[in-house]
């Protein structure tokens, strides 16, 4: 198929950006979206122009590096799919595809489609862990965890930190990302000692960078790992309890 791409190009965080148009001919449906960008870039390099910068690494939908707004949707048209796992068979001959970086005030553009997501690290740093210094752990089976609890924790822990939730949110809120980690750790018996401290610190760090949640639910729709909106409710409940307990 033959496609037209309109891609956001921007030299640096303080430069003015704009769309540029590229033609991609003979695109195979088995190509991934990032392989399409590879082909366009190869062409640009051959012409002596600068290739489009975009973040990517594992190309298996697990490292969370990649993330593009494709036709206004975070990670593009296919549900539960990161950009790197999106294949061109989702598109049709003659389509024009608009490609933009994540748009959120907390994520300044580094170049073209690459943004700076360090506020996510700040949220984890604030409390997204269980303090278990190396060597101090008890025998693993001394801590039984009901299978259901463990499964629910795993559902939340599947978050890849790609930030599609923020990009999709009209308020640029990071509640889904934060809640996924809060719920993963707060559900487990190992996570109880730091439960209230964790949620309070993580939520308040989140609020330093990101907008408020008004329950639009766009984040859940955009999430390539199907992290459930329910996690936000659990986080909010824990946060409220924490504010009372920690007072």
């Amino acid at each position, binding site marked *: 198929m033959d496609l037209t791409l309109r891609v956001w190009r921007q030299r640096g965080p303080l430069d003015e950006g704009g769309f540029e148009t590229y033609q991609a001919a003979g695109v195979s449906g088995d190509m991934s979206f990032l392989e399409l960008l*590879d082909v366009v870039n190869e062409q640009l390099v051959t012409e002596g122009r600068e290739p489009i910068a975009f973040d990517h690494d594992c190309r298996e939908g697990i490292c969370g590096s990649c993330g593009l707004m494709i036709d206004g949707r975070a990670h593009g048209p296919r549900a539960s799919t990161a950009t790197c*796992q999106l294949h061109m068979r989702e598109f049709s001959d003659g389509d024009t595809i608009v490609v933009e970086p994540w748009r959120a005030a907390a994520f300044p553009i580094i170049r073209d489609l690459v943004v700076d997501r360090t506020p996510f690290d700040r949220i984890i740093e604030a409390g997204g862990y269980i303090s278990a210094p190396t060597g101090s752990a008890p025998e693993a089976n001394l801590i039984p965890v009901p299978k259901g609890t463990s499964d629910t924790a*795993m559902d939340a822990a599947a978050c890849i930190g790609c930030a599609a939730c923020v990009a999709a949110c009209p308020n640029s809120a990071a509640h889904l990302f934060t809640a996924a980690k809060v719920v993963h750790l707060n559900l487990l018996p190992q996570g109880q000692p730091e439960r209230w401290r964790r949620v309070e610190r993580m939520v308040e760090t989140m609020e330093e960078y990101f907008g408020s949640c008004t329950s639009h639910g766009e984040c859940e729709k955009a999430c390539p790992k199907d992290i459930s909106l329910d996690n936000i409710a659990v986080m909010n409940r824990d946060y409220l309890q924490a504010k009372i307990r920690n007072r």
Partner: protein
Amino acid sequence: MPLLDAKTPDGPIEDRWDDRKFSMKLVNPANKRRFTVIVVGTGLAGASAAASLGELGYRVKAFTYHDSARRAHSIAAQGGINAAKNYRNDGDSVFRLFYDTVKGGDYRSRESNVYRLAQLSLNIIDQCTAQGVPFAREYGGLLANRSFGGAQVSRTFYARGQTGQQLLLGAYQALMRQVHLGTVDLYCHTEMLDVVVEDGRAAGIVTRDLTTGEIASHAGHAVVLATGGYSNVFYLSTNAMKSNVTAAWRAHRRGALFANPCYTQIHPTCIPASDEFQSKLTLMSESLRNDGRIWVPARPGDGRAPDEIPEGERDYYLERRYPAFGNLVPRDVASRAAKREVDGMKGVGPLRNGVYLDLADAADRLGEDTVRERYGNLFDMYERITGENPYRAPMRIYPAVHYTMGGLWVDYDLMTTIPGLYALGEANFSDHGANRLGASALMQGLADGYFIVPYTLGDYLAPQLGETPRPADDPVFRDAEERAASETRRYLSIGGTRSVDWFHRELGKIMWEHCGMERNAGGLREAISDIAALKQEFDADLRVPGDADSLNQSLEKAGRVEDFFGLARLMCLDALRREESCGGHFRIEHQTEDGEARRDDERFAFVAAWGWADDGAPAMHREDLHFEYARPTQRSYK
């Protein structure tokens, strides 16, 4: 030929690590903060090392070229992590895990290291569970296990198909806790370009900030490299796009010996390439082999759809050739067997480049729900990539390069031949011999990072108390910075016509053709001259657009691909020198009558550790391997 001393302790194997720990010098808790330790890489090995060293009180500087410490390729490991817990009461033990690992490595690993790895496997599971890694559990709330590629006991712990992700996030979270506490300074988007060696010791590193292009130096009392493997020398591999050999290679250039570069692992269960634009290959956990059956049509050139081929006209070739292990034979055996079928015109799929992996029998036996629970995410992934529904038709698989057993030579303490320079995880060569067993990479990365280097580093540092490392503005650092900067300028100034990716792809083709699943002397010699010719073209015709002062992904790749050229040559030399077949290294000239690998323990029971040579013949050092506990036998999985 110079002999290497691994400084392995004597005495009964089960006491060696305890004895070594007791003999090590300690650094007083209050003095630890006087030492600066540089850790490069934040995968399983690097993140666990940096976190553990920070917890101990060292001043740690950790570096990653990713935008966050959570993205290293460890995250993509699917299947699981081994530990000799014997929770299943099926006869596992530390000794059995040790024995299986040495045997699986085809008797080319160091016994003492492997035994320690098996011992530490117990602590790893405890540690990760305490961190909140959501391992799979039984209804009683205790940890679940499964058996995994090549093992006859159920010793693999897993978190759905995302074990690597969960273990890495555990280590990353522990690391971020230390960042918050101020014991670790984390440098993201920062790539290591050189190791600085002064007075015969590692003194620090030179880095480039990938966002601003700034080249800077960092001084430390010791440098720990945990920078992963080099599968991407083949261009198409299951590694992440950015995975590279640069940190290890530049250490090699500064004098660290590089051991067994030809030992590469081909993983049997990857999704076959679909077209020429393919940028990487995707692995599907070989846990699928537990319940899946591998087959091809019995008749060459049979183009029928899989459901039209009756049972009697299918060849379940692994079950036929290896009745005892069947579909669970080790990776190297399974991979070569698949190649043989495809080469014999029995390949399946549009390009005839795969074999079937069929879970229909498992679905009948266990029910589709159980299959979905165990493998659902892998099925989803397969469908996303191929557009085919694996619940309806068997999946197609083919081997792909996946892991590299070779790496920087290290002694028992994980120190390279440069004092003060350590290598952990896949970046070193130590534990997997010529072939790595499934679910052992995660184990090794975490053993090295959580439980080995925090001890052994102290022994190196203790005598240096009171010594100030050479500061980062010392001329020795300035010279290294200038060298790094001039290389960067050179790439930008060539002004040729070909992209970095083009050269990478061409190099990969040479390596896959001649230094891949099967090798022979003629092919390897041809590869060496082809690599040299392509490298000349690279130097003359490379085009890197843009500048050095901002994010420039082509420029980053140029340095990595140049290092792959040097490595590729060394891999071929090593493969040529090793005139035997062992594990992942299969020399066509050295096979049994029925086509199995023929090892030569008389002549090749050693580690080949190579010195640096720009063009000429590099010097080979050797470490002889002794097997006192796991006596070499010809591996047989029949």
